């Protein structure tokens, strides 16, 4: 729902984006999704002892394309997703927004298939296609009847190297992206607060800018920028193809060989994706975004924490449990303290984003009640954190937090597209299939002592930025002061 995507959002999605009070919408774009793994196992005395998903079949071509196959034979439908290991954090300085801009331009046709042909082929069979860009990946997908898969593979393989860009298409699409920026950020003070908070939190890493980029840089992006980026990063040895649905790996392999096998590998793809890293954070930061349109103030706090890839073994699942314990649902510690007991806020939540190649975030979001000062909110948040860092959480609370996390894994079984996305996000942010499948077990192993230690270690205010969304006083009001 909220990576930057090529095709339009419906109104409901717009409304959801425009209301980033309990879910930090723009952060989800960077490192979104703490849902839906592929398997789950038994939970001591609990209810989550269900059958496991099969291990996906994997194979790779000689040109380096990795292929993951997730079977779901309930309906004759397949989901094709190709994931390129390139995102906004891989853009050259001064060219922010380029990864996302290229994603839009990938719909402009190739030497073989004129503009619109791919999309019409998908539409004519009742399918759907779209694409989205993250900080660490760019993904294109189609949902189609299974007998269309061969055709989809051919279209997707074709646009990996044969994109044709005309100046007039590039310029009008740039206007489209600027309207996307207007919708998602400029029109939305809450989104602008998040933009400013990320910039304040990341001192050195490109995660400090939104995926869509800064306006003055988007305005200057051109055809050559897009083609240069495309040639550098779009190659079979920088991509993962995920096919989920009514298909078997054995039957799929020759189709993939036929369509993608002839594309040469790109020798200049670096073995490791190195970006400028964050220095140890030294100062607590605050950001205030004031806008006359703000009728409901919001407070967010973002902590810089390790991602599943950068964390030491076992620490990322501890952060999953910590965030759930603090802010997942009405029995979480923050909600109980701020909303139920002290009545300072109408919502309070926390969230950890494990999928990122580099340092990630643990976020807290609170909607204050009218008349409540931010200071009161922060005092209460700090009290909750101090409690977690000083006393081991009750076992039953830890178990409920784990069950809530594992429930997401269970319900993901129902949706092949979710499973494909779950794998894709993690594979493109440095995890292995085994690590991904091991997530539920690693959640089960988390102890109260580990949660306490993680709170102490990572929820240090020096690692954080606190953001305030406030109403800007009118001119007259300001002058009277």
């Amino acid at each position, binding site marked *: 729902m909220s990576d930057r995507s*090529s095709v*339009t*959002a*419906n*109104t409901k999605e*717009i*409304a959801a984006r425009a209301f980033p*009070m309990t879910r930090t919408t723009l952060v989800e774009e960077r490192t979104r999704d703490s849902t839906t793994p592929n398997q789950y196992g038994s939970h001591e005395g609990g*209810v*989550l002892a*269900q*059958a496991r998903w099969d291990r996906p079949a994997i194979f790779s071509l000689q040109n380096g394309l990795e292929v993951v196959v997730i079977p779901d*034979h*309930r*309906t*004759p439908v397949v989901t094709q997703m190709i994931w390129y290991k390139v995102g906004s954090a891989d853009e050259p300085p001064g060219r922010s927004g380029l990864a996302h801009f290229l994603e839009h331009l990938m*719909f402009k046709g190739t030497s073989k298939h004129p503009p*619109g042909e791919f999309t*019409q082929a998908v*539409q*004519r*069979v*009742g*399918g*759907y*296609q779209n694409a989205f860009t993250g900080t660490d990946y760019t993904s294109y997908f189609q*949902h189609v009847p299974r007998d269309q898969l061969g055709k989809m593979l051919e279209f997707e393989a074709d646009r990996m190297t044969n994109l044709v860009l005309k100046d007039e298409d590039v*310029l*009008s699409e740039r*206007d*489209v*992206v*600027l*309207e*996307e920026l*207007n*919708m998602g950020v*400029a*029109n*939305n003070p809450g989104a602008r607060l998040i933009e400013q908070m990320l910039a304040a939190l990341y001192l050195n890493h490109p995660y400090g800018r939104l995926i869509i980029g800064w306006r003055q840089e988007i305005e200057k992006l051109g055809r050559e920028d897009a083609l240069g980026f495309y040639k550098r990063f779009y190659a079979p040895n920088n991509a993962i193809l995920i096919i989920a*649905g009514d298909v078997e790996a054995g039957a799929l392999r020759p189709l993939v060989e036929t369509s993608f096998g002839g594309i040469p590998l790109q020798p200049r793809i670096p073995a490791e994706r190195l970006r400028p890293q964050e220095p140890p954070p030294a100062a607590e930061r605050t950001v205030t975004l004031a806008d006359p*349109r703000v*009728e*409901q103030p919001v407070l967010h706090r973002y902590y810089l924490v390790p991602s599943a890839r950068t964390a030491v073994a076992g620490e990322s699942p501890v952060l999953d449990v910590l965030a759930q314990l603090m802010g997942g*649902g*009405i029995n979480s510690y923050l909600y109980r303290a701020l*909303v*139920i007991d002290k*009545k300072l806020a109408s919502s309070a939540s926390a969230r950890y984003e494990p999928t990122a190649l580099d340092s990630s975030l643990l976020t807290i979001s609170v909607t204050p*009640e009218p008349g409540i000062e931010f200071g009161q909110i922060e005092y209460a948040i700090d009290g909750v954190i101090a409690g977690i860092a000083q006393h081991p959480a009750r076992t039953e609370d830890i178990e*409920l937090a784990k*069950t*809530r996390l*594992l429930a997401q894994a*269970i*319900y993901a*079984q*129902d*949706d*092949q597209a979710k499973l494909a996305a779950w794998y894709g996000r993690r594979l493109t942010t440095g995890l292995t299939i085994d690590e991904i499948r091991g997530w539920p077990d690693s959640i089960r192993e988390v102890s109260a002592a580990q949660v306490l230690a993680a709170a102490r270690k990572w929820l240090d205010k020096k690692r954080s930025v606190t953001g305030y969304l406030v109403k800007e006083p009118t001119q007259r009001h300001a002058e009277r002061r």
Partner: protein
Amino acid sequence: MTQSCTRRDVLLAGASGSIAILASPSLLAATSTLAATKIKHLVSPCGIKATLVQDATVPLIAVEYAFGGGATQDPSEKPGVGHMVASLLDEGAGDLDAKTFHERLDGRAIELSFASHRDYFRGSLHTLKDCKEDAFDLLRLALTSPRFDPADVERIRAGVLAKLRHDSTNPASLANRKFFEVAFKDHPYARQAEGTLESVPKIDVADLKGYLRSVIAKDALKIAVVGDIDPEVLCKLLDMTFGGLPASSNSTPVADVVAAKPPQRIFIPLDVPQTFVTFGGPGVRRTEPDFMAACVVNHILGGGGLTSRLFREVREKRGLAYFVSERLVWMDHSAVFVGDSGTRADRAGRTVEEIERQVRHLAEKGPTQQELDDAKSYLKGSQIVALNTTSKLARTMLQHQLDRLPIDYLEKHDSVVDAVTLEDAKRAAARLWGGGLLTVLVGRSPVP
């Protein structure tokens, strides 16, 4: 989602009731277990009716149900009562306070939710098959003995008000709200299900209880179930859950209404860089013979995906907007078409002009044969693609009941689409768009 012609009532209702148009059995090969399974019609010993697709591939059960009434049953001076009820049913019931109720849900990974749509009070329940007894029991408690403890009512009210305050300067919310106010004037469809900053503070526990008494009853209940459960067990659980509800509801009748006649243009000033545009007009009711023809031409003008005329002309060719789409919204007592777009303030005039030009052109000339064929092909194929999860199938089966379609509609759908001729499509286009547009603009300056 992909099919704008099948989206019902999303603008006000929040959660969508998108009906997926259904699977053609001829295309469903033997491997297809979910959608190819016959839909069964069940009647429990207590007389509770439901449709069921039994499928054991995943150990889950999805239940979708609806009570007739919805937001139209809010007292006229207190819109938002149904929405408050929906938000409070899982906040404590019977002997369980809110904390304990949520612990029971969370501890068994049960997902329970409620929503007030225009014509229906809807609910959904997702559970692991091993937890189904607990899941249905919690649902029974929620529907039959919600506590409405004062502290919980105030807490939920605070959340509703926070969202309304936020929405009060959100361009999309302002435009949608105004569109329905203008289209439906003093009819209940003019009101927002969430209520208003004025109405929500006035809602008291007596209102909530009154709403429950008038809406939550057996006579206006429709249920659809998909998942790993057999009919006998389901019948027992349905009796246990819904059997104790009052036999009959006490709804206020809702009059049929035709949306306000276009053309009209309304401007709401708001200092935002991007002007939000909502446009629409009277639509085609679900029960009318031209409904499917309207779906087809709607797909051609502004439907999902990246091929509609509006998408091509407004976005692809001219770069005027990131989003531009249009859909049919049908209700029990009316129907409209509604579209949205957004463009920077100095291009709002051009964008509205282009939308109007496209609408006029399709109304006057109709679609081409190729467009008609492609749209029909899409509408047939999209059923399979859209029905690939347990919960999507359950929502679709419920929507078919609400639309009073036969239980074998899945199998009939393709022939209904096939029957649409070019003449039908032209007639539907002329009827939908021949009168112009009711347009609401939210932005810096009115379009000249």
